[in-house]
């Protein structure tokens, strides 16, 4: 039984969507809108907050409450929104530049505090809005307009940053796989605490095909591994490959070869606080490994906005001061009431306020 019979359309605004034709952002938006419709939460309780970037135009295309803020600060502004009103369902829409460059500080502190917001990181490995400069997720050697001879710096792996910041939820998806993106977003929405979903997004104009080696549907089964809670970590067209641990390291093994059976394949446990293995999964890259997709980590931990609320409630249970008049009269006060004393002139009378 659902309370509200929303469809994705109920979450679309009348504003004309202005992303370039073929941009991966369209697909992500469809997945988000579908997810929100399925959440069965009153439309009025959604707040979508973004920074600046192509991806950050997102709130204008939504029919919910939305706030398109300033570059890098979406995480901080969303932290204020959610702390002020924990009853809202708060989504942060942000790019790789927005969250990992200019907003890096707010991003890691949002994750560390574990404020219950859902953050979608549109990773196109480029600055789209400013027309194609390298970003903190661009690979070493990447040639762009600001790196005509190739970059000389290594990139962030977003999931590492999340787990390094004591993140409680990290998932990965690809823009061209809407169904899977939606499944992942649904789990992110369920999570209590900060959930970060990195979506590999194609920028057709400035970084076309940057994720193709991973995302090409023809090779999806071979190059991506879809991690599912409680399931063995298998992949491949024939579902005949899996991940095992050998000498403390991950390794791809063929089921049926060298005596490996399904029993030997690692089982995915995102709810276990197993940082080492989860970071290893995040780090897997082609060609040695398939790229990990799905919810890689989802653990329970205390949630900032709830703790803030509880602390106030706990203090108020035992409070001695219940209003400002009592506060003003509390502590060291004394009374002046001599005969040579004047009647007080009140500030707002004195200053002739209307």
């Amino acid at each position, binding site marked *: 039984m659902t309370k509200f019979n929303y469809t994705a359309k109920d979450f679309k*605004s009348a*504003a004309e969507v202005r992303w370039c034709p073929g941009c991966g952002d369209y697909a992500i938006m469809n997945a988000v809108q579908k997810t929100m419709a399925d959440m069965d939460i*009153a*439309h*009025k*309780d959604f*707040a979508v*907050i973004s920074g*600046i970037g192509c991806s950050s135009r997102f*709130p*204008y295309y939504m*029919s919910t*409450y*939305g*706030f*398109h*803020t*300033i570059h890098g*600060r979406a995480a*901080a*502004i*969303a932290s*204020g*929104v959610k*702390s*002020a*009103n924990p009853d*809202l369902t708060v989504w942060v829409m942000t790019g790789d530049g927005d969250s990992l460059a200019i907003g890096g*500080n*707010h991003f890691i*502190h949002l994750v560390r505090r574990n404020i219950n917001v859902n953050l979608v990181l549109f990773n196109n490995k480029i600055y789209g809005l400013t027309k194609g400069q390298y970003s903190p997720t661009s690979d070493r050697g990447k040639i762009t307009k600001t790196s005509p001879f190739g970059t000389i710096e290594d990139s962030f792996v977003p999931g590492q940053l999340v787990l390094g910041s004591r993140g409680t939820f990290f998932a990965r998806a690809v823009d061209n796989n809407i169904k899977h993106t939606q499944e992942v977003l649904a789990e992110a929405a369920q999570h209590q605490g900060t959930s970060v979903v990195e979506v590999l997004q194609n920028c057709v104009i400035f970084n076309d095909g940057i994720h193709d080696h991973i995302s090409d549907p023809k090779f999806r089964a071979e190059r991506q591994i879809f991690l599912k809670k409680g399931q063995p970590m298998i992949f491949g067209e024939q579902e005949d490959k899996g991940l095992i641990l050998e000498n403390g390291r991950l390794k791809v093994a063929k089921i049926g070869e060298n005596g490996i059976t399904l029993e030997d394949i690692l089982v995915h446990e995102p709810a276990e606080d197993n940082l080492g293995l989860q970071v290893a999964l995040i780090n897997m890259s082609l060609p040695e490994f398939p790229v990990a997709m799905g919810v890689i980590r989802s653990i329970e931990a205390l949630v900032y906005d709830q703790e*803030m609320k509880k*602390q*106030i409630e706990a*203090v*108020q249970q035992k409070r001695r*001061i*219940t*209003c*400002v*008049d009592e*506060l*003003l009269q509390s502590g*060291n*006060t*004394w*009374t*002046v*009431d*001599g005969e040579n*004393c*004047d*009647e*007080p002139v*009140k*500030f*707002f009378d004195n*200053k002739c*306020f*209307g």
Partner: protein
Amino acid sequence: MKNTKVIELEEVAIRFSGDSGDGMQLTGTLFSDTSALLGNDISTFPDYPSEIRAPQGTVGGVSGFQVQFGGKKITTPGDLAHVLVAMNPAALKANATFMNPGGTIIFDADSFSEKNLEKAQFKTNDPFTELKLNDFSLIPVPITSLTKESLKDLELDNKSVLRCKNMFALGLICWMFDRPLDYIEKFIQSKFGKKSPVIAKANLLVLHSGYNYGMNLQHMTPQYIVHPAPIEKGTYRNINGNNATAWGFLAAAEKSGLPLFIGSYPITPATDILQALAERKDLGVKSFQAEDEIAGICTTIGAAFAGHLAVTSTSGPGLALKSEALGLSVMAELPIVVVNVQRGGPSTGLPTKTEQSDLLQTLYGRNGESPVVVLAASTPSDCFYYAFLAAKIALERMVPVVLLTDGFLGNGSEPWRVPTMSELPAITPRKAKNPETFLPYNRDPETLARDWAIPGMEGFEHRIGGLEKNNAGGVNQDPDNHQRNSEIRAAKVEKVVDMIPELEVAGEPEGDLLVIGWGGTYGHMISSVRAMQDAGKKVSLAHFNYIKPLPKNTADVFSKFKKIVVCELNMGQFASYLRDKLPEFQYYQVNKMKGLPFSVNELVENFDKLLEA
């Protein structure tokens, strides 16, 4: 008693001075509170180094606390001290120039050793001659050894014994000024009594030793009488500017019926505001210590978007970091209050010293045409009312407001007649009412304020942002639209003029010289102008609390005087603002950039010169 020299005074300034570890701030505060409780009016000035524990015994490590109290209205902590308590040679050296000629200097004779004289960089073994202090009443008291003597029966380590020295000085001063010890005793009991009864006992013993020392050796210590001040009826408390600011926001939250949110990052001298509000979970305050000042204001903007009374507190360097986000609140038209407790700049500057040099940063330090309302408090206690009013303006006009205070106000304290909530005006936030007609940037035709709809309100869902917008909040880069919106944002701030009172003149409404000040210099300005008036000069004061917009009658007030002088603790920022807004007048300037408040004397001298010229 017959040998005692009894001096009756209208007002006295005492300076307590020692190493930053000597507990001088506490000593000064306890003495001030005691005096206020006796009915004296007081004004205090804590003056401490930016290093928490600078090298012991050096002039750089001296921490001072000056309090002036008296039998009449006290408006400043006093230019010069009548009595100095110097716990070591460095304290003597640092304060010699702030002494009233012929004043009394009480010093810890034990600490005037060769080694300490050297640390304070005295060239001879006679610091008093070196500093030309021979005309002063010099009272050597072996404070260290008497403290040790008083505590010899308690089994205390040397460090804890020495920590009690300040209580000896406090006891002695209380005797000199005929202050009872009961308030201080109660304080010591409640601070140490439970945690460490032996420390409480030690402090009490030493406090009494100091008091008795004065009584027993009364032939050499003068005793002063300062009568209570005739002040207004009511309940009083001592309050510093930062606490008053915090409480003003609490009052505004209660009046407006909104929860209070503060997002801030610690910075001297503003941190106390965040701390004072973090303490008030009992009143439901949500305090968020952010990762930096940018996040401080951004969480605040987020909370305002979500419908809270949202404030952020900082000092100059922090305001610089907040500037881009402050522009966002201008564009989005969200009600936030930013408090800037100014300190000496630029850069890290003089973190613990006062200055008024962020005025132009506040008015103009943002990209684009980005008008905000700017208020400035003028005494420690009126920070309460200006914080309240800043919140009222923000909420009723949907506009960001910056409240300027400074280190002198923030840390300084004075007795304050506490108001009741019923004395404060109502605050009516502009909550949107009709979803049918609602658009986020539809405006009240009178005030140009928009309506406020917050997430969770059914039927009002809308998008806003930092891009130039149409009435629905959608992006609109049309040239005429930007022109119109820029004008509206400016006009909206100007229209706040009808919420603020007219500029008041202290003294005759016309004359030879109009003295202009703004913000935290009020006490010194009014004292110096009164001194001029008492000397028969035609001088009046117009002190500004409302910077943007300026009060309606400003030009009118200015036009009645032959000369105008603008006094400020910067290089002339308000003067240049006035030249821009009211170019028809000529402005003289008095400026000071020493990290110190004005002194009444220097102001009077400057005014005399202007009258003669």
